[in-house]
Each structure stands twice: as structure tokens, then as C-alpha cells.
């Protein structure tokens, strides 16, 4: 590291500027290249993101009782990544595990692109959501593997739930690899368009939404959806709901 740009900390002109952006600015140079320390930091962030993409969801670690586990028609991770269409369809043999009931809402914990996000955030978010919806009839919690957002449509239809809420792992970035999203769909059935859903994204502990805030937003969206008769583009996010500062 001896050929690193010699900049004593006290006169490092970047010191204050780094506070203005999370971008990797002012890295210094070894010849043309990035110094080893920053190359390794980048590789670590990428490896963590890759791990999150490849991770499998272990329902036993979620600490929930009586979950129903289902799979999409994407049989493994490689197929899941290349065939989004299969990730939206329920595996045939799993359909009988979802008996219909008169449910107001069904929650699905779905790996999506980050099982890590579901493992870390979903139990807390689910607990907060259940607390924020007193008196609601809630279907048994479903854990879905190799799942895209639209898999919830078939799950919700089979459970005969009025709403389905997909809690799904977002595509990992270098700075956050465990961010969770909630997708809410009224009267779920296969063929629902993305414009018929509402999304609460960016739920994670590093400047994202807290579980409590996410649950409050969800409860508001569900009640508003009942009032206006559906979810989707006509249901605008509550402007009075607090937003995260970052």
C-alpha cells in the first residue's frame, strides 16, 4: 500500500465531501487502479449480495407456527432466475395444501431475489402487521420458495382470501442485500397486472422503513382499498404517512 496516493488525513480534501453521498468517491489511485482496500470492500459487498440471491429460505428459522410451505414451478435457483414465468406459477402438487377459507387477508413469505431479506425482516414485519390488523381473519401463513410476486395471486385465490400480501426479498444491491418489499393485491387471481397492486418497498434496518412503519402503511392501504373497492394505481399512498429520512 506504499504507493497509495499520499494524503495525510488532516488535509484529505475528500473527508467532508464523502458525507454528501454514499457513492464510492475519492478512492485514491495505485497507478490507474483502485487501492486494494477498496477493491476488497467492493468484492465483499458483491459476495454478500450474491449470497443473498443464492440463499434458500428455511421455514424452520422463521420462528412461526403452522406455516404451509409451497413451491413455484421453478425447480431450482438457476431456473428461477432464467424463467420468471415459472416463478409465477404454483407447483401442481402443492395446490391441495391451500384449502379455501373465509379469510380477509393471506400473508405469503416469499424468497424472491433475497431469501436473506425474508429471514431477517419478515418475522418482525409479520408480527407488526398482525398487531396492526385487530379483528381481521388471517389465513395460515404461507412460505413460498422460488417465488415471484405474482405467485401470490394463485395462492390467494386458492385460499379464497380477500387480499394477499406478498412479503418478498428485493434484488440485492451492494449497500443493502436484505431489503424486503410488501405487495398488496385485492381479490387475487392469476392474471392480475402489476398495476393492480400496491407496493411498500425498502424495508430494512439501514435507513429503510422499520417493521412498525411498514405495518402501519399496510394497514392504511388495506383499509383504504376496502373503502375504494380495490388495490392498484387508483389507490395512492397516504401522503400523511411518515417517510424514512434516508
Amino acid at each position, binding site marked *: 500500500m506504499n504507493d497509495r*496516493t499520499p*494524503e495525510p488525513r488532516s*488535509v484529505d*480534501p*475528500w473527508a*467532508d*465531501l*464523502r458525507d*454528501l*453521498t*454514499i*457513492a*464510492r*468517491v*475519492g*478512492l*485514491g*489511485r495505485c*497507478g*490507474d*487502479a*483502485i487501492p486494494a482496500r*477498496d477493491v476488497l470492500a*467492493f*468484492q465483499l*459487498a*458483491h459476495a454478500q*449480495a*450474491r449470497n*443473498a*440471491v443464492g440463499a434458500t429460505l428455511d421455514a424452520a428459522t422463521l420462528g412461526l407456527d403452522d406455516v404451509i410451505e409451497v413451491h413455484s414451478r421453478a425447480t431450482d435457483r438457476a431456473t428461477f*432466475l*432464467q*424463467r*420468471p*414465468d415459472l416463478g409465477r406459477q404454483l407447483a401442481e402438487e402443492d395446490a391441495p395444501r391451500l384449502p379455501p377459507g373465509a379469510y380477509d387477508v393471506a400473508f405469503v413469505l416469499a424468497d424472491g*431475489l433475497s431469501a436473506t431479506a425474508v429471514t431477517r425482516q419478515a418475522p418482525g414485519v409479520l408480527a407488526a402487521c398482525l398487531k396492526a390488523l385487530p379483528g381481521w381473519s388471517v389465513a395460515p401463513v404461507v412460505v413460498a420458495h422460488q417465488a415471484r410476486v405474482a405467485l401470490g395471486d394463485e395462492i390467494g385465490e386458492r385460499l379464497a382470501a380477500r387480499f394477499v400480501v406478498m412479503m418478498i426479498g428485493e*434484488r*440485492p*444491491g*451492494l*449497500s443493502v*442485500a436484505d431489503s424486503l418489499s410488501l405487495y398488496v393485491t385485492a381479490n387475487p387471481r392469476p392474471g392480475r397486472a402489476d398495476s393492480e397492486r400496491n407496493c411498500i418497498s425498502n424495508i430494512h434496518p439501514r435507513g429503510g422503513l422499520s417493521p412498525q412503519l411498514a405495518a402501519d402503511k399496510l394497514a392504511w392501504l388495506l383499509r383504504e382499498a376496502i373503502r375504494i373497492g380495490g388495490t392498484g394505481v387508483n389507490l395512492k399512498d397516504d401522503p400523511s404517512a411518515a417517510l424514512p429520512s434516508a
Partner: protein
Amino acid sequence: MTYRAALDGTSYAFTDLKRLLACASSARSGDQLAGLAAADDVERIAARYALADVPLTDFLDAPLVPYEADEVTRLIQDTHDRSAFAPVAHMTVGGLRDWLLGYDVDGPTLAALAPGLTPEMTAAVSKLMRNQDLITVARKIEVKTAFRNTQGLRGRLGSRLQPNHPTDDVRGIAVSMLDGLLMGVGDAVIGVNPASDSLPDIKVLLDMIDGVRERYDMPVQSCVLTHVTNTIRLMERGAPVDLVFQSIAGSQAANAGFGVTLDILREADDAARSLGRGTVGSNALYFETGQGAALSANAHHGVDQQTMEARAYAVARAFRPLLVNTVVGFIGPEYLYDGKQVIRAGLEDHFCAKLLGVPMGCDVCYTNHTMADQDDMDDLMMLLTVAGVNFLIAVPGSDDVMLGYQSLSYHDILTLRSTFDRPPAPEFEAWLRRQDMLTTEGRMRVSAPQQLGRVLGPTGGLVA
């Protein structure tokens, strides 16, 4: 019309030209997702045998996307130059491939041919070319454009400085911009992807970048990459717009998915040119493309993704843009699965665009769910530089903190300049020299960051 090949006693039939082209494509996940790919490698090679014997005139006689239903097809057919096509009119696709590689076929020959080629012809011939062939032919071609500096000159490499910020914070963007300028990046364009669609927010960014450009008398152009209709409105309100950006694709329906028509692009080009802000040229548009865009909009008409991508270049060249780039690895693994597919696609896109006379650059990039890493990007950036790519995109430390994907770093541009002796645009190089930022050998000074304090002043004068 059915195309056939017989190999080792087995006969293969391809029901029409689009089926033949799709089967001849090198393997990629997007064509598999669309159900268009060859069943296996042997069928793929059989398709290439059959494709090699297809006369180029077949592409003029039977458009892959119907003329009546698609304004991109109408543009391609109506602007096809028969006299430019004449030198190759008698050739097959295989014959064209061998001819392109010959020593006698040079840059001026290919520039004269460009108006005579359709995108489908370039896509077809690319499917018979190995990666080295795509490089060998592309590097013969010089596509020169200009605004405040000259892009695309042989032996030079432009770069886009992409100083994105997750919330469009103007000071955060200024810091990333300064970081790039101190490494000599940004001659092609200083181009921000805004998080917001709000016109007042975008005008703040345009004003900041233009202010810095004027203050340091930099021969560069700026762009905030918002929807073309937003930029038209910003021009009407007197915002300092240099380049007008838009994402485009290879069919009318796919462009409708982007909210654009050829008429809207024409209106934008007229408006930008009428501002007359270019000093050494008037190419004022900037387009981005990428394989899979048409399929993801379900607007691919059963045509393979690489051929649909080449059709986007017909849209681009109609407007004489300053810059075009494929965002090759951004779309994700359902279209380009791994580093191998991304590298191949990047070389195909560059080759087809150059053959059509389009000033092609590339965003050498990938997402975290694609099977690729920075080593694959090192390979592609070097291959494209050898191929004579007009410009490459770079962000601080390869990490785009707004769009959440990885591109090249500012440092990578330095590496390419050193390794392949590729200076930036001549006007920008002269400016760097005037600022005393280059050593006598033409390298960016390592001490350049020390000048930062001087540039900024004690109170952060740059963005005050």
C-alpha cells in the same frame, strides 16, 4: 418460405426467416424464455448453415415485422438505399461475412455501405461471426459525431461520467462529478439518471452541471436522462439542455411501451438543434438500447432479441445522435444469463450498430442476480476498446448507488487509456492539459485530487 439444412443425414427445416435467425443466435436466456431458441447446439449450427446460404435480398422481400403494423419496419424499408446496397446485393449472408473480413474492405467502403444495409442483415451476419470477427470488422469503422467536442475519432475513447445519487441531492451529484472530472472522465457526456421525474428537480441538476461547465470553460455536454417529453418541456422553459435522452427499442409497440413515437423523437431533435448550443457540431440526441427490451414489453413479434436490438439502431440513426449505448447487462439474467452471454451481446450490439453507421458506446454492466462479476466487465471493456467503441460509461468505484447495479469505474477508464493508448476527445484532452491535469506522458496526474481544495475553495464554492 422454409429454409433447410442437411447435416450428417439429418435434415433440418426452419419455417421462416425469423425462426431461422432465432435458431442461429448464440445461446441466451431471453430467447429461451421467449420459446424461440434452438433446441440444442446441433440445431443451432444447422440454422447457421442454412442462414449462410440466404440471399441478402430475402431480407428486403419479407420483413420480419409487418410493414403495415410497425413504423420501425416502415422506416427501415422506406429509407433503404438501393444504390448503397448494390455492391453486396448479389451476396448471401455467409458471403457477406467473408467479404467484410477481407483486407480490401476498409472503413470508407463500410461507411458507404451503411445506408444499404438493414438491421436484420447486420444481425444475420453477426450470427455467423465469432467474437474476434465482430471486433475485426467493427474496428474498421469510424463513426464521428460532434457537439462541444468530437466523439468517435479513431484511436480515441470517450467516456460518460454518471454521477447518480439515490435522492438527486445536487451536492452529492456534484461530488461524484468532481471525482470523475479529476480522473479525466466525462468527454462524451456528463449524464445523470435522475431518481425523480419532477421538472423543477431536474432543472436544478441541469443548472448545476451547466454552471460548472461554464465556470471552467469545459468542452463537454450534459444530459439528465429523463423522458423525452420532460426534456421538451424543460427546453420550452429555458433550461440549459444540451443533449436530449430517450430509451428506444426495435418495434413500434416496444417504443410505445417507452412512451415514444418517431414523431416525438423528431420534435425533440428539432427543438434541441434549434437551441444551437453545440460549438463544433449539432448532434443533439442520446439514445440507450439493450437486448430484451422488446421481449420484456411483449413487443418482439416472435423475433429473437438480438435482431430486435439491431432494429433499434435503425431508429437511432434516423436522428443522427451524438451518442448511443447499449446498457448490455442491466436487464437481468432472464435475458442475458451470465458473463459469457453479456460479453457476446455487447460485442454483437457494437458491431451491428457500427455497421449501420451508429455512434455506438456501451454501458459495460451487470446486476447482482446475473452470473457475472467485475472480471467479466474487465474483459468486455478491453474487448470493446480494441473494437473501437465510441465511449464507455463510468461511475464512482463501479457502484451505481441510485440504479443499484455495477458499471465501470472512473479508474477503469484510466486503465483503458493507458493500456490501449486511447486519449479522450481532442478538445477535452486539450482542456485537461490547460488545467495542468495531465503529465507530460499524457496520464492523469495522481496528485489531481490535491487540486480539489483549490477548485472547491474553503466554503465548497463549486456548488455554493
